[in-house]
């Protein structure tokens, strides 16, 4: 069987198998194993999140997939192409962590620059630049130089840059690091849209909440090894427990429910209370909608 293909016979967007990356420290014979025999795959069309603390090997894995680093052992493939193959690069759009583009270029010029690098030109390129500026909501800042962009805007122009050649796979490294909650939400929404439009998204993050919100599947990396991997629901749901959220329930109804639970053998009420929104949600609600946070 073709190792790059998953069970459905479809080629994986990313196929990492037995990847090991070792760095030597200076001239001394000392080594650091950054990634240790790592295997996983990202299916075409899904949002895959690689999570783990700083230094767990996420960025190294990503750089190997991008062809910026060569594996010490094992392999990384992108749509069946070796990650070192330049054709693989056409299929990838990459947004690095805290990207610094040329500050002297405007948003539109940045997109044009990267588009030309991908062999685009003329009216096709101009049309694509306009589309992307619209997509990331930076039409108003198209002619402003990146030196004057906020972090969130940089992240969005970075995402547009990643999409310029219309790649099949988008790789995002800590896409919301250092971005304020509103900017962070905009980026999250963009990722959701990318998935809806059929892109495969592979992202790395140490912000668990973010991963939880957007990813179909996640892998948890720790000290260079995959500790857990699977569909998000499988990983975070507690199978033996169920929660019901009600709105406008009267004390009488709640009393009845409690009664029912008590009557059932083998069922016990673990917790009861008002659900809490996350601080991020709260902040966004106040800032964006002027909504009164009090219920």
């Amino acid at each position: 069987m073709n190792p790059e293909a998953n069970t459905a016979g479809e080629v994986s967007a990313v196929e990492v198998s037995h990847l090991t990356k070792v760095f030597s420290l200076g001239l001394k014979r000392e080594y650091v194993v950054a990634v240790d025999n790592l295997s996983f795959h990202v299916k075409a069309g899904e949002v895959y999140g690689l999570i783990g603390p700083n230094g767990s090997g996420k960025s190294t894995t990503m750089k190997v997939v991008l062809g910026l680093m060569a594996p010490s052992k094992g392999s990384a493939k992108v749509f069946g192409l070796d990650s070192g193959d330049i054709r693989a690069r056409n299929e990838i759009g990459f947004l690095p962590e805290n990207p610094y583009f040329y500050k002297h270029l405007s948003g539109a010029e940045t997109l044009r620059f990267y588009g030309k690098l991908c062999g685009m030109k003329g009216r096709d390129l101009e049309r694509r630049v306009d589309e992307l500026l619209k997509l990331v909501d930076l039409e108003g800042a198209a002619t402003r130089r990146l030196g004057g962009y906020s972090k969130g805007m940089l992240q969005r122009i970075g995402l547009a840059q990643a999409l310029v050649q219309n790649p099949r796979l988008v790789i995002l490294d800590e896409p919301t690091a250092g971005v304020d909650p509103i900017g962070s939400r905009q980026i999250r929404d963009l990722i959701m849209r990318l998935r809806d439009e059929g892109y495969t998204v592979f992202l790395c993050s140490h912000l668990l909440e973010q991963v939880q919100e957007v990813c179909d599947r996640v892998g948890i990396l720790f000290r260079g090894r995959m500790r857990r991997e699977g569909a998000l629901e499988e990983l975070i749901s507690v199978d033996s427990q169920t929660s019901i959220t009600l709105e406008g329930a009267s004390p009488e109804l709640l009393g009845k429910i409690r009664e029912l639970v008590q009557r059932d053998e083998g069922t016990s009420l673990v917790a009861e209370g008002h659900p809490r929104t996350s601080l991020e949600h709260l902040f966004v609600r106040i800032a964006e909608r002027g909504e009164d946070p009090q219920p």
Partner: protein
Amino acid sequence: MSDEAPPPNPEPDRATPAPAPGARPVPLFSFGRVATIASGTVTQLVRMKTFYFLLAFAAVVVAAGNFNLPATPAKELSMIKKVSFGTMDIFAWLFAIVATALLIPRDQEDRTLYTILSKPVRRIEYLLGKLGGVLVVVGVSLLAMYAICAVMIGAREALFVAAEVEAMTADGRYSDAEIAEQVGLIRQQGLRAELGIAVLASFFKAAVVAAVTIFLSTFASSSLFTIIVSILVFLIGHAHSMATSFWLHETNNSVFVQMLVKLIKILIPDFQLFSFSEGIVQGEPVVYALVWQMGAVTGAYLLVFLLLSLLVFVDKEF
């Protein structure tokens, strides 16, 4: 989740066409990509306001144009030429080193390099584009500096010739032939077409320096390191012929010293060879065959140092 914030763009279906089915081919080498990186580099250097150094150059030339020494017009013109072309030469190579050293390590520090290399760009195309961009800017700066010099020298020359002709005709003692002879002496040191070849010589030198700097910057992790080492290499590269006559032709030097000098001669380019603009500026006749041969040597240096840079850069990990 998107119930709380509206998507930034309400027309999702327009933004992205359906993903392509198979791997798109990438040409082995694309001049278009090289040109894109080169023009990006030119834009970068221009917008970094590097051309302001031309103002400093103009100041030097104006100062040189007003020495007002008790010297003959020919001598004064010769001094103006030497100062302006000497300064031009320094500005060209120094600019080539600093600009080149700023570009690649900076792209790396800023992680811009990641985004460029994660596009279908070959590393040789990146290196060529960067070098090409620097050379375009150096070339344009040299032409601009040449224009500044030409205005100054041309103006002084016209002034000197007019004054000399006036002095000689007022006396009435000199024949037209003698006046023409005297004017010829001044014109000899004035604005001549051969000076363009001196500019070309400075360009050759700056091009080789830039190629060496690119090579060094593929090792280096910082701009400062690259600049310092490049300048050092440049200075040592001027001492080849002196070192040869000092250490290699003397019998009392140890074998170790002789080996060291030979090693340095082999590893470091002979930059002094590229100083042939000095002779041209002094008014010596240009031997064009030699100029073209120096052009070929320059080409060889560029080629070799690009290959060397590629060798280090091709699978450098970031």
